[in-house]
């Protein structure tokens, strides 16, 4: 499966890996275009959320807590993002080729008030990164897991 093959590369390289627990991995994808873009990928083949075990629900809650707290702690603000879970279609097919994953696309770039704009070269040619995914992974690893507001 493509996404699990990709995950195995990242688990070996460990250059863009931010956090992992027993069931899920949080990383900055190789192809990330938004500065603080991340993805959560399950370690086993899972097509949709109905296949989550009780344990996986707890592990997913853990990794959601980690990424959302880390985001808030980067600039000590309630960090904006658009996040979504891509899952297999519910058209009655089995869709074993699908791997559930969750994307986070935050708009901020260098500070709480400086947003990334997809303009100029990016609008007319291709998206390009302002900060490397490896550097962002390092920033995300280094910010605390305890929320600045609750610490």
């Amino acid at each position, binding site marked *: *499966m*493509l996404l699990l093959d990709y995950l195995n590369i990242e688990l070996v390289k460990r250059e863009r890996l931010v956090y992992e627990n027993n069931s899920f991995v949080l990383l900055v994808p190789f192809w990330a275009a938004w500065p603080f873009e991340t993805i959560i990928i399950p370690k086993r083949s899972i097509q*949709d*959320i*109905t296949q*989550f075990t009780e344990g996986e*629900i*707890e592990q*997913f*809650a*853990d990794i*959601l*807590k980690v990424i*959302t*707290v880390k*985001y*808030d702690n980067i600039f000590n603000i*309630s*960090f*904006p*993002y*658009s*996040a*979504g*879970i*891509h*899952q297999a*279609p*519910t*058209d009655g097919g089995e869709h074993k*080729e*699908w791997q559930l994953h969750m994307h986070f696309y935050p*708009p*901020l770039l260098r500070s709480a008030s400086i*947003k990334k704009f997809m303009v100029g070269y990016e609008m007319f040619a291709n998206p390009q990164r302002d900060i490397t995914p490896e550097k962002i992974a390092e920033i995300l690893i280094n910010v605390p897991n305890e*929320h600045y*507001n*609750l610490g």
Partner: protein
Amino acid sequence: MILVVICVPVIKGQNGEFNPAYTSTFAFNNDFSAFKYLCRGEKELEEQEEQYAVPYNELLVAKPETGICRVICFSPRHDVTLAELGITDIIQVIKAWKKEFEILGKEDYINYIEIFENKGELMDVVIPIHMDRFGLKKPFPLSLSRNRITN
């Protein structure tokens, strides 16, 4: 373009109905839904497609889209984000996603379910209500078709 007026712990939807008091997550239909037609079954879909079809030529094609938009509030404390919720409460949010997916995924007229969250003013969230929106539609979204890679 989604706005719901909320007073804790009771929500008054734009349809004038009051929602019950709730202590954990709460799911309801979006009154300002991206999909206008709640379709039940193939026959009704065909009738709607005929009724709402837009005149087109060989270059320009438009046709009705069917589906339903659901909203899930994370918590009665509608100013609390995922980052500020405890693990136990995040587990309840995931269970609410799972329950919605299970129920809606069984509907014939729903072939794809997107679970997403927009957080922060930069993402066009005008009042701080922390919730997810489900967008559900019959055809498969074009933006996801590239994810359908087998092995």
